[in-house]
């Protein structure tokens, strides 16, 4: 097997809050291989976005900090890397795109200025060369008439186009890894499909790995080769996509999949939901964090924390659904 591009081990991220220290990400480990697309799935507040941000050293500090673990990328540990060196990496080796296409671009500068700024930060280009590359890139992500569009301001573009501009900026310096944080959540369904297709196409073309952070299992099913399910700051299950959807093993994953409405099946009385609610990160149970809501709970689950046993297909559960 090839060497992983990114190797995250025991990553822990903490935030100081008024009520105390919150561990938003607690001992997360995973590998990302070159050119693969991996989904990082979970509900709001499970730590998926924080995991994504920590890969680029973008945890707001204070109140946040990386409390432990390592992020190995390109032969160095990004947790130990200085801010200056991280800046070189951001946008050139690892890029990130965000959920809010309405606000993620700077409203008072043209698309062109913003793209040229990014290009010239990382590449020794003249302004004119950078502009040509930016126009090129915009054409690449499917923006019609890029030479004209580049003069426009973000508010003159539609949501889908803004997200395409973000993608063009993110890819303009040829990153090896793209962290896409809910890139399509704010878009309507048709645009969503187009943008996802674009990301998939570009990924092959640019030969980069993509971490797709999302709460939408449908998006994961469509685009990813592998997925990691997060719950309460921990990865509870990781598996290749077919396996995850066909034979989920962790009760939380099963619950998630069951609560998706299906068109072809007969409509049940009510959509099944996972009972109970996510525990407060300030008052976590000693054992498995899902124990209180779990149908398959054992005594052991309430006392000990289950660990994720493998990297490619595993569930952090003492009583998983048999494979």
């Amino acid at each position, binding site marked *: 097997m090839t060497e992983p591009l990114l190797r995250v081990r025991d990553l822990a991220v903490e935030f100081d809050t008024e009520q105390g220290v919150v561990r938003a990400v607690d001992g997360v480990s995973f590998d990302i291989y070159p050119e693969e697309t991996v989904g990082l799935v979970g509900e709001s507040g499970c730590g998926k976005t924080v995991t994504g941000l920590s890969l*680029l050293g*973008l945890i707001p500090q*204070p109140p946040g900090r990386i409390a432990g673990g390592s992020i190995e990328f390109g032969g160095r540990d990004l947790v130990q890397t200085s801010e200056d060196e991280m*800046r*070189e*990496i*951001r*946008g*050139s080796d690892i*890029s*990130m795109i*965000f959920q*809010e296409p309405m*606000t*993620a*671009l*700077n*409203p*008072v*500068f043209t698309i062109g200025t913003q793209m040229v*700024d*990014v290009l010239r*930060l*990382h590449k020794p280009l003249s302004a004119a060369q950078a502009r040509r590359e930016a126009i090129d890139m915009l054409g690449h992500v499917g923006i019609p008439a890029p030479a004209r569009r580049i003069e426009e*301001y973000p*508010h003159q573009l539609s949501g889908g186009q803004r997200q395409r501009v*973000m993608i063009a*900026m*993110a890819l303009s310096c040829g990153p090896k890894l793209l962290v896409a944080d809910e890139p399509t959540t704010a878009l309507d369904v048709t645009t969503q499909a187009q943008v996802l297709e674009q990301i998939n196409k570009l990924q092959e073309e640019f030969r980069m790995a993509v971490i797709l952070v999302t709460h939408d299992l449908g998006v994961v099913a469509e685009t990813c080769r592998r997925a990691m399910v997060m719950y309460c700051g921990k990865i509870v299950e990781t598996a290749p996509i077919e396996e995850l959807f066909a034979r989920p093993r962790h009760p939380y994953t099963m619950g998630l999949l069951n609560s998706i409405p299906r068109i072809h099946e007969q409509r049940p009385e009510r959509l099944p939901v996972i009972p109970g609610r996510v525990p407060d990160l300030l008052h976590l149970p000693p054992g498995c964090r899902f124990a209180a809501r779990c149908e398959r709970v054992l005594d052991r689950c309430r006392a000990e924390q289950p660990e994720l046993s493998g990297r490619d297909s595993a569930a952090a559960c003492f009583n998983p659904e048999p494979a």
Partner: protein
Amino acid sequence: MELLQYSLRKIATGIPLVIGVTLISFLLMVYFGPDKTYELVGKNPTAEQIAEVRAELGYDQPVAVRYLDYLRELVTLDLGFSDSTGERVSAILARTIPISAAVALPGFILGNLFGVLLGLFAAFYRGVWPDKFIMAAAAIGMSISFLIVIIAFQILLSSSYGLNLFPVRGWDVHSIGDYVLYVTVPTLATVFVALGYNTRFYRSVIVEETTRDYVRTARAFGMPAGPLYYKLILKNCMIPIITRIMFSIPFVVISGSLLIESYFGIPGVGKVTYDAIVTGDQPILKAVVALTAVLLVAVQLLTDIMYRWVDPRVALK
């Protein structure tokens, strides 16, 4: 074209404002202001003498007629003569406004410039000691009375108790050297007083701006702190900054300089206005009031055009 149309419309809507301001000020002046008559008639006047002076001053006319006269004066730019000195009001203003501007501008510009710079600096270090230090200093600066600041600077810099480097009073300016000599102490006092307020205001605007999504985006693309703050964030802060600066202009030019001008004995428009208020010199007061109102309308127009210039989302409609 859009700009011209907009300007004309804006000026048209400014006319009621000017009328409103002048009408209210005029009524207040007529009914509550000092009466110039008895200053001019001398001791033991006869009734005829009083009537004569009142007719000369125009006091014998009905209020409505006097107000319409006032408006006519404004439109024709013929502002009449001072009741005290008999000098042409337009000549007085032409002489004093440049002096006031020369006194006020350096302090005004530096106060805002340093305010923005310190605000950026404090916002960058928010929560840590450089920020805390600047904010504490700002609070102290804001708490000291303007009068104390003026007197303290005069004693420290312009008297034999202190360094005795600058003239305390007056305005005897014939060269750049003279100008620097006379303007330094007033400028220092103005900057000292304005800086606290400005820094606090600009810091809060900038801190607010740093929480925006585009800032995170820029950081995610490797933008260093320098261009991030001085280019991306600052341009996004320009609307509140322009608003604050522009709308303080009428007050800085006319009334803000009043204290400075009286304490430093500078014959500017603030001093002239102050004297006119005390002696009831209505022609001068009427001119200054109208000038302030017109300046406010002009500043509003200019401010809107500047908004358009810094923020492409603003439409001039």
